[in-house]
Structure formats: C-alpha cells, structure tokens
C-alpha cells in the first residue's frame, strides 16, 4: 500500500536530476507517472523502465513546456493513457547564467519562458481536469535563490520568484475546488545543473549552509510525495524551503 495508489502524476523535466527522483518516488508510492522530457529521450525511457519494474505504470512524453500546443498534447496524452491527472509537478527548468550587464535578451527570454511561462501553461492545461475531479495537487519547483536573489542569475531568480507568486495565486483561485497548490524551494542539490559550477563557487556556497553539505534529489522528492499525499491536506499556497538551513 503506497500513499499515492491509483493516482496519476505528470512530472515535467523528469528525465534527469530532481525531476527524475521525483518521478521515481511518486511511483514508489504507487502513482502512475507521465515522465515528460524535452531532449533526453533515452534517459526518460530509462526512468520509465525503472518505474515499470516497480510494478506501477509510466510513459515518456516529449513536450516543450514553453509551447502551448506541446503542453496541450502532453496533458491530453496523460488523460488518454491513464484517465485522469491527480498530481502535476512543475519541475522543468533551465539556466542561462550571466551577469545582468552581460545578459542577452534571449538568455532572459529562454529562462522566463521555460521556468515561469511553462508553469503557467502546464497549470492552466490541467486545471480543467482537476476542477472536474474536484481534487488535485499542483507542486511547483521554485528555488531558494528565488527567495534570496543570486548574483549571475537575474533571469533564473526572476522566474523562480515568479513561480512562488504564481503558486500563491493559483492556490487562492482553486482552493474552493479542492485543488491544493504548493511550491518547494530547493537549495543546492547535487545534479548536473549544480555540477556545472566551479569548485570555488561550491565552496563559497557550502560555507553558507548550516548543514554544511549539498542536498540530494531525494530530499526534494520526499517533500513532493508529502505535498502530493493526504498528509498535507490542510496546506496550500506555501513554499517549503529545503536548503540545509541556507535561508532562514
């Protein structure tokens, strides 16, 4: 008996990193999972195989979350395949770091489109289904830098702060329909995204983390399971900081 038996989850950007771990943890609790990916088909299929071997179901669906037609097709496929969407995890995200003074317009646009507009489009696309069901969970993956700010990431920080505002508004609009919307703000988590950082940057970061270590994707995935399950049924519009105490 899992906490999410029979539930259907869509996880965007689920082929790698935090998204992959979220997909696996939701499946471990019995959810059927739609593994969305943008470019890494092989890796997405590996996640699907891993989930199928746990005895629940998964499919991989390619979609660009910043494109409305692509998002519509993603959600239609999920409903066609599994009959409902109970959980949406807006996880897909990219970085195009640069100092504000050097940041090009397309670096700004790319990050805002995927990391913020993508959350809006995916949320809008599942709302109809969840309103009819009179239940649903939407979990948005923001970032602790969206709360603190971070030099070199104006685009990313603006998008992630925007996600927190979007979470609160969506939570208010949909509360009467029993759709609960919360966000998670991860700190520094060991993934390819943070692997690209220099040793100096990593050390500088570690000195600011009371728990003195990077987090693991599982630390985020476990919180997603909590927010997707009945254990969190009296909370909406909140942002959980999972960052080793970096920001208090």
């Amino acid at each position, binding site marked *: 008996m899992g906490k999410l038996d029979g539930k259907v989850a869509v996880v965007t950007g689920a082929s790698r990193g935090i998204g992959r771990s979220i997909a696996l943890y939701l499946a471990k609790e019995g959810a059927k999972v739609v593994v969305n990916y943008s470019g890494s088909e092989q890796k997405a299929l590996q996640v699907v195989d891993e989930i199928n071997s746990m005895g629940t179901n998964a499919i991989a669906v390619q979609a660009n979350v910043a494109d409305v037609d692509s998002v519509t097709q993603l959600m239609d496929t999920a409903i066609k395949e599994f009959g409902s969407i109970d959980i949406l995890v807006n996880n897909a995200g990219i970085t195009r770091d640069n100092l504000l003074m050097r940041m090009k317009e397309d670096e700004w646009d790319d990050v805002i489109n995927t990391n913020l507009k993508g959350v809006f489009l995916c949320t809008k696309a599942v709302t*109809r289904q969840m*309103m*009819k069901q009179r239940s649903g969970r939407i979990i948005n993956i923001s970032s602790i830098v969206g709360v603190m700010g971070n030099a070199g990431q104006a685009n990313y920080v603006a998008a992630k702060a925007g996600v927190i505002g979007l979470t609160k508004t969506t939570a208010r*609009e949909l509360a*009467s*329909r029993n759709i609960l919307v919360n966000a998670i703000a991860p700190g520094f988590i060991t993934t390819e995204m943070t692997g690209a950082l220099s040793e100096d940057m990593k050390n500088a970061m570690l000195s600011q983390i009371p728990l003195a270590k990077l987090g693991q994707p599982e630390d985020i995935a476990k919180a997603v399971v909590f927010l997707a399950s009945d254990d969190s049924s009296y909370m909406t519009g909140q942002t959980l900081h999972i960052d080793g105490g970096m920001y208090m």
Partner: protein
Amino acid sequence: MTTVLERVTKVVVDRLGVDESEVKVEASFREDLGADSLDVVELVMELEDEFDMEISDEDAEKIATVGDAIKYIEGKLN
C-alpha cells in the same frame, strides 16, 4: 427530442445547485443564480462537453445569462 433550453437548464441546475424554476432565459448566472467567476468558467466547460463544441475565451466572456448561452449554442449548432 430535448431542446437546447432543456439541456442548458439541466447543466445549470447540476452545476449551480439552483432550482429548475429559477433558470429563466433572462437570468444572469452571477446576479440571479449565485455563480462566482469560477462557477461561470466551469459552467462554460460543462456546456462545451454537453454540446460537444469549443467555446473560445472571448466568446465565453460574453455569456452572462441563460439566454446568452442558449443563443450562442443554437447559433453554433445551426
């Protein structure tokens, strides 16, 4: 055969929990039938399903009364 009026009435009664006698052609969803803005969005969604048609956001914004809905749907069906 059930008329458009009857089918719309049924959707409105189911969705808004009002009495059938209240669903008059001139009744406004928000003023007379107690719907909030989200109820109206849902109502339009259910009318789309009932009549198997797509109602654009632009058109949906113009549907304020039971009569508006019937007129719009009849126009689309013909």
